[in-house]
């Protein structure tokens, strides 16, 4: 292919599982690679996978990864000529892209103007609506609070209020009645300012029991833009995705084509380059509305890779080099079914409170149609410094039932000890009859909370667990040794 630019050394300005995943592709492409690390992560396997690793410093570990001058400086001093931002951190920061531009370093992602346009909830909605794509009834905050509140009441309840500049679940809430609305708006503005440096909020009609359906798109500098089908990410807690799958069980072939073509239309209208995701809310009656665009690689991108066979990170790199897409829309087939489960350090039975600890044992599942993307390692301390996601377990099979079964097998195979995780909980979600029949919506976890609550171990298993624990406890075994009876079975403990 006709690369306009060639890269000598690519820096992954990220950490954890996504850094590992990008580094693997860079290796396959035969490119020199580098990765960032904070001193807390000196033992991270990403450091061994990359050809080079640069320490970043900051008041907090997250702060270090957000330090634009420092990271650009590292690029200059180490001869880095391209940066892959991964997701999170600086992945959607146009100032970072501009700073790299000035330093003559290529950002692997869209241009800053497109990032700014689509990264702004208000601007992107206006842009999409003006071009005739569907958006939900909404109101935009122009600073006049009285006007905003009147407009929210006019939209009607329930209404969703969120930070204009935000993403993820930060500062997002559903309001069901006018009472207390003024206080809620005031708090939302404070949070929006704090998280995103922009106090504007916006509100839109909240659709009950919607599905979250998003479409992967890929564009190049030559005007080509394709979709790589949809992903359904309805299983969420605290507005954050837990299980994602493709294809969506909700879409008929006609609706699928329709929603995917809308996504390509939106991406084309922005002259989008690189990998991006257009998110929609999908109502139970089959209507869908543009939600937002993520101008980066997504956490859940592997399920798209599993069904299409396309390495999305490799495509991002090729597009950044100026190559045209190597395939046409009709070449991209959606084959089989893929599911991703996010393994997080959290306690689902305690309202998903984050857990902390040390990874004492990690045995990834291995088998046909199984993929395990993780940056974790035995001995890793899991705390509040970074995101709670430890790993992504991805499976692929011929159809949805087989994929659900395979995900269950993979969870059974996985051993992750030392930190409480949602691994058991994910298994319970997958086994739930409503999930199995594809009746998912973004309220699934709340709606079925009673059914997917903790499954109590049988009395036999609990006794076996206690026996195992006691005989694995050094003090207990030492105490037995002190008792003057011959515990011949315990010989192997005395070392």
């Amino acid at each position, binding site marked *: 292919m006709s690369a306009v630019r060639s890269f000598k050394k690519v820096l992954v300005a990220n950490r954890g599982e996504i850094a590992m995943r990008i580094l693997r592709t860079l290796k396959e492409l035969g490119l020199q690679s580098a990765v960032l690390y904070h001193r807390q992560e000196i033992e991270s396997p990403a450091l061994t996978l990359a050809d080079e690793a640069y320490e970043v410093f900051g*008041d*907090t570990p997250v702060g270090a990864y957000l330090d634009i001058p420092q990271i650009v400086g590292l690029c200059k001093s180490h001869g880095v000529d391209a940066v892959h931002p991964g997701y999170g951190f600086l992945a959607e920061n146009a100032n970072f892209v501009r700073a790299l531009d000035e330093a003559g370093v290529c950002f692997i992602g869209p241009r800053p103007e497109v990032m700014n346009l689509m990264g702004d909830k208000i601007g992107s909605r206006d842009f999409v609506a003006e071009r005739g794509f569907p958006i939900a009834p909404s109101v935009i905050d122009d600073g006049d609070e009285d006007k905003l509140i009147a407009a929210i009441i006019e939209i009607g309840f329930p209404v969703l209020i969120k930070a204009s500049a935000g993403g*993820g*679940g*930060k500062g997002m809430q559903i309001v069901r009645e006018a009472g207390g609305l003024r206080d809620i708006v005031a708090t939302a503005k404070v*949070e929006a300012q*704090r998280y995103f440096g922009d106090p504007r909020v916006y509100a839109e009609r909240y659709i009950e029991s919607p599905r979250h359906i998003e479409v992967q798109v890929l564009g190049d500098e030559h005007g080509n833009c394709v979709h790589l089908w949809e992903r359904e990410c309805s299983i969420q807690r*605290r507005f954050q995705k837990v299980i994602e799958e493709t294809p969506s069980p909700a879409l008929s072939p006609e609706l699928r084509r329709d929603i995917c073509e809308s996504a390509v239309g939106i991406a084309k209208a922005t002259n989008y380059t690189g990998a991006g995701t257009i998110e929609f809310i999908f109502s139970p009656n089959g209507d869908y509305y543009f939600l937002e665009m993520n101008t980066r690689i997504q956490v859940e991108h592997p399920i798209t890779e599993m069904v299409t066979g396309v390495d999305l990170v490799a495509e991002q790199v090729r597009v950044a080099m100026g190559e045209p897409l190597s395939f046409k829309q009709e070449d991209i087939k959606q084959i089989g079914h893929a599911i991703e489960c996010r393994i997080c350090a*959290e306690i689902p039975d*305690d309202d*998903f*409170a*984050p*857990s*902390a*600890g*040390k990874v*004492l*044992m990690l*045995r990834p599942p291995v088998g046909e149609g199984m993929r395990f993307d993780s940056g974790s390692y035995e001995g890793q301390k899991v*705390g*509040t*410094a970074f995101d709670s996601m430890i790993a992504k377990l991805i499976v692929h099979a011929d159809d949805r039932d087989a994929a659900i079964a395979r995900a269950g097998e993979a*969870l*059974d195979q996985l*051993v*992750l*000890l*030392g930190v*409480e*995780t949602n*691994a*058991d909980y994910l298994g319970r979600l997958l086994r739930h009859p409503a999930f199995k029949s594809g009746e998912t919506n973004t309220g699934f976890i709340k709606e079925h909370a009673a059914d997917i609550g903790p*499954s109590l*171990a049988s009395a*036999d*298993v609990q*006794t*076996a*667990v*206690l*026996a*195992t*624990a*006691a*005989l*694995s*406890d*050094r*003090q*207990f075994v030492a*105490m*037995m040794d002190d*008792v003057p*009876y*011959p*515990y011949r*079975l*315990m010989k*192997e403990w005395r070392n």
Partner: protein
Amino acid sequence: MRYTFKIGDELVKVAPRSLADELVLTIGDKDCDVKFEHGKEGRCQLTLDGKSYESWVARDGDDIYIKMSGSYFKVTAIDPCAAAAGASAGAGAISAPMPGVVVEVLVAEGDSVVEGDKLLTIESMKLQSTVRAACDGVVGRIHVSAGSEFNKDDVLVEIESDD
């Protein structure tokens, strides 16, 4: 001699009862015939009253992490001596409901507060919440400052009760 293990919210006593060739453990109020083998790399094989249970086990101090029959368990060995010393934090000690980061400290040591007053803004799981005084009193030691990270159950602020 007996040992106590915590599983979930339950405390269960486990004691060895000796036999010459076979190990018998009293678990709760049940006597069980037990054979136990440590395999490679943390894999364990237990035979309990003739039934086999395979598990993966890892220990960190008193905490024993087990995966058995497709489920995860955390069992904590309760050291009888440490348990007695545990209840030292005062009634007015406000501890963290979950791990997180302090966003803002809203009171100073020596401030008078009434029940429900805001003490701290904390952030966990990307969500902010307010820590409030659980009783009337005077703010004693503040163990954190803005930006401090804390773990679940860490004492954040102490309130010296008026009572």
